[in-house]
């Protein structure tokens, strides 16, 4: 468990880091929880012309009037620009109309493959996880993929137990070989660090470690021998402005960890 060190929570730092992955004018496959908040922050601050797409069939370009617990909560319908069938929004994704997608997962490996299906042998699993949902589709078809998950040696692994959502497979050329039309992971954001992918080796490389972590903490808690990028640095802290917008949407810290709650680490 990662301890908060400032007047923001690690969850808030992760949301802000995720929001910075969204560029203005982009079509974003949003997902739930932290990415949903990241989209709200980006939309209000640096990416006002971005459009959010949800796999239940909702497309919206204004933030919701209330915090969402799921993408199908009624406040996500009101004010949407389109409420349609899943096949239509998945079609946007498959055609190549979606710039960036966000997914979570239980494990990610050094080539950005994500497991959200089984821990252990899939035939006799130690843990049966909920499954892909839309994550495998987003990982297959979006132009860029951002993966968000908690950090740990059993979570950031050399090779995932089950490749639910394809990253770069076993390395360079793999996506093209299996027939994926485009894309691949561009960042992994954890509660300790931010990784980016080397375009030559397709490997996750450490770019930032969060304030309160040391480089050593991150290396020790990662399940493969991590390469550190030239110029790697502490993760830039969230600005007052970013925190302000984020807390408008999640004042109680439902998804980012309550700053006043007694059960905080």
């Amino acid at each position, binding site marked *: 468990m990662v301890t908060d060190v400032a007047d923001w929570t690690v969850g808030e730092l992760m949301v802000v880091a995720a929001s910075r992955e969204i560029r203005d004018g982009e079509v974003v496959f949003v997902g*739930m929880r932290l990415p949903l908040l990241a989209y709200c922050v980006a939309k209000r601050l640096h990416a006002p012309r971005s459009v959010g797409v*949800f*796999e*239940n*069939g*909702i497309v919206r370009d204004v933030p919701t*009037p209330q915090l969402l*617990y*799921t*993408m*199908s*909560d*009624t406040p*996500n*319908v*009101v004010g949407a620009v389109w*409420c*349609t*069938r*899943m*096949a239509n929004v*998945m079609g946007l*994704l*498959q055609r190549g109309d979606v710039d960036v997608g966000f997914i979570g997962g239980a494990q990610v490996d050094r080539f950005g493959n994500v497991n959200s*299906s089984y821990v252990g042998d*899939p035939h006799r*699993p*130690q*843990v*049966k*996880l*909920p*499954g*892909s*949902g*839309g*994550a*495998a*589709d987003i*990982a*297959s*078809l979006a132009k860029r993929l951002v993966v968000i998950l908690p950090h740990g040696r059993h979570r950031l692994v050399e090779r995932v137990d*089950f*490749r*639910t*959502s*394809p990253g770069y*497979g076993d390395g360079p050329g*793999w*996506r093209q070989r*299996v*027939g*994926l*039309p485009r894309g691949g992971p561009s960042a992994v954001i954890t509660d300790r660090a931010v990784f980016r992918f080397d375009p030559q080796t397709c490997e996750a490389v450490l770019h930032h470690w969060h304030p309160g972590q040391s480089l050593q903490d991150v290396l020790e808690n990662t399940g493969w021998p991590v390469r550190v990028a030239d110029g790697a640095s502490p993760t830039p802290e969230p600005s007052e402005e970013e925190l302000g917008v984020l807390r408008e949407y999640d004042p109680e810290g439902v998804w980012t960890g309550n700053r006043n709650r007694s059960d905080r680490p």
Partner: protein
Amino acid sequence: MGPRPDGKLVPLREAISRFVPEGATVVMGTCLESLIPFAAGHEIIRQRRRDLTLVGPISDVLFDQLIGAGCVARVVAAWVGNVSAGLGHAYRRATEHGIPRPVEVVDTSNFAVALALMAGALGVPYLPTRSLLGSDVPRHAEAFRFSEDPWSGEPLLLVRAIQPDVAILAVQRSDPDGNAHLWGNLGVTEEAALASRHVVLLAEEVVDPEVIRSDPNRVLLPGFKVSAVVHCPGGCHPSPVPGYYRRDHAFYEEYHRATRTEEGFREWLRTWVLEVPDRQAYLERLGPRWEALRRLQPAPAAPVDYAW
């Protein structure tokens, strides 16, 4: 509006007993987290149906409940768990330990579920996609085959059609013949409705046919495809219905805590399903929180005019 002798408008109990036989393939939860027909799932549990195959994109906790109650032999779903609270404890007990019975899982993805139902709706044996290439998800050869584009030779995944025995779908309003209006996110509802042999509708309101015909673009599917219409207000709680009630987030959290153990699950089932004869009694058991969920911010659409 009372039920007609030979009409489609029937009580939930009758709709389930007629259209959800033992071993049936049932598609539910097609809008994703909204409009989940929990009342129908609970009636299936009360009627002790066994060996069902459940089909859905994500089901939130409805599939977890049916699995925990021992009704299910097989699940074809992209995601099974508790969307806002975490893993599905009953699903884990069944898939990891065979409690109360083993359940076969056919891994799939949301898009693949949509394509399988769309193929079923179109009456073709499969549809191709470029999703899931290189993923371990499509490992069941009965559901997926790898192939290639006959023109370009590029790799493709073929997703086999699913034609469920019955689709149980919630709608805001229906006429007595099953011409129904659905609004909000549609998910895979149209495909599921058109792919299935029978369609059972759970309607918040049953309205005159003129209401439906005043806005034919909002109709889910024509009534001749619908086998039964059930007037079931509140039938989707704790999931939301746009225009009618909000999602009961706390109920999912409570379910998550209560069902951590097998005993806890059985107790939960007794309280909310087995000891509850019908949906009306369930809503009474909810008490004032049900009233609170129905206090909404109005957001009417501008009317459309089909002038001719």
